[in-house]
């Protein structure tokens, strides 16, 4: 095999990394929607968040917990904002949930795993 191909594969190699090693977050409520602001821990990794933490992936991550997801970009703050519609079981005072105001949807998003180039993954996350 020519050396070139091997090299290209090495560049493409990724590892799944939990978002907690790439971002911090805060969430709150807007009616029956929760919002999660996801902020890159290192501005250099913001493009990775933009590319990998897509609307569709977040919707899959919260499957069964939310109805629909919107995503907004705030490059100035190295942040993404997600609106998780129907996340609060009626929201506000109607909701029977412990987290009726969506305060910990932030950390629930940080459980998500995204593919990260191995070189980056080695720097930021423990293990393997």
């Amino acid at each position: 095999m020519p050396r070139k191909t091997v090299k290209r594969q090495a560049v493409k190699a990724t590892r799944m990394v939990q978002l907690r090693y790439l971002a911090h977050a805060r969430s709150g409520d807007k009616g029956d929607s929760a919002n999660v602001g996801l902020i890159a821990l290192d501005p250099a990794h913001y493009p990775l968040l933009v590319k990998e933490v897509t609307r569709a992936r977040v919707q899959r991550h919260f499957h069964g917990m939310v109805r629909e997801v919107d995503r907004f970009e705030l490059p100035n703050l190295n942040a993404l904002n997600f609106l998780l519609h129907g996340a609060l079981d009626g929201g506000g005072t109607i909701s029977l949930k412990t987290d009726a105001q969506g305060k910990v949807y932030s950390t629930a998003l940080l459980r998500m795993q995204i593919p990260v180039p191995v070189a980056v993954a080695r720097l930021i996350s423990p293990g393997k």
Partner: protein
Amino acid sequence: MTDRIVRVAAGQGFWGDWPEAPVRQVQGGPIDYLMMDYLAEVTMSIMQKQKARDPTLGYARDFVPLMERILPDIVRRGIRVTSNAGGVNPRACAEAVREVARRLGLSAKLRIALVTGDDLLPRIDELLAKGHPLTDMDTGRPLSDIREKVLSANAYLGMAPMVEALRQGAQVVITGRVTDTGLTLGPLFHEFGWSPEDWDKVAAGTVAGHIIECGAQSSGGNLLRDWRKVKGLENPGFPIVEASADGSFVVTKHPGTGGVVNLASVTEQLVYEMGDPNTYITPDGIADFTSIQLRAAGKDRVRVSGIRGRPRTDMLKVSIAYFYGYKAVGTLVYSWPEAYDKAKAADRILRARLKDLGLKFEQILTEYVGVDATHGALAGPPSPDIPEVQLRIGVRARAKAPVERFTREIAPLVLTGPPSVTGFAGGRPEVQEVVAYWPALIDRREVEPHVAVEVLDA
């Protein structure tokens, strides 16, 4: 004059926030304004209920003893206070503060103003008749569907009456439903003489207000990033905005206080309760949060600049609260071994009993605290050796009777259900009235002519 700084300090982030905060803001260093936000979405309905029982109530009562503690200092140092503690009865609130000032011998030195006109409850039928449907912004339903259940209705006012009250020399301005951000915008527009149509300045003041309106949540409280490194939260420094005439400002806190003001603490607060960041709508204008530039500017100092805005809309948001029904939440704690299985068995038994009794609920929600209450299924299955699980069951119904009956079905599980259960010392769960929120819009021309500023006599 261009290098003049105006300091606006946050004293309360919500009704029930740390009572020491405003005192320490006043005593801990230089400030020009103390702003105190008391109103959340359904707070007004609670206050409306209190006012219905007693016409001298209907405001944030803790504001008055708080003012008693700080009045001598603020009078001596000329600090001005802006607060929406007035709730649905700003007049009674202002009069109660005046009473305190009199008792302290300070009333001659203290001008107190109140702002009214946000309360639309007495005008609802008139507005509906005029063709304003007050449609629920979330569901699209017209208000006529729930008209007879409405408990409170308040338009969110902007900064204009606040600016006017300050212009008339008021030192304490007490409002009803003025926006959280308006409590900060008012002082800045009054001090710098900005035009209310300078939309970038409106946006800058809005962002400043947003950063400090939740109190210590921008200065180290509830900060996720490096939370272990946040020191001194025994005495958290609440945030202070040091604003400049060009619309830029620094977020900071008093020296010697705990917590931290850094890029992470400010950014987490900026994204809190955010919708579309390009379009943060307030009664005074639209702020573009994607234009905000943050820069670290020394220990516990973050400089904020570059904020752009757009013109205000013709509409004001109306916060309507209406009676919805009843709910109750019961809890029991099951211990190792097989704690989770025991809790699940108890849930099955309870649900079967509720069904046998023929009770009708709009919803029954079971959560297992320690297993799934915060992250649902994302948390995965618990360890088989989990030391304990709290069973938490909530019910909601339009009628009171089934909820009331539910509250009598929790304690019996202790002796008639799965073993090793405890944690029921609180007795029967409480039946709570559910007051729901109905956000609507109204043409600002229907509201603004009714808004009034009144300075009380000493």
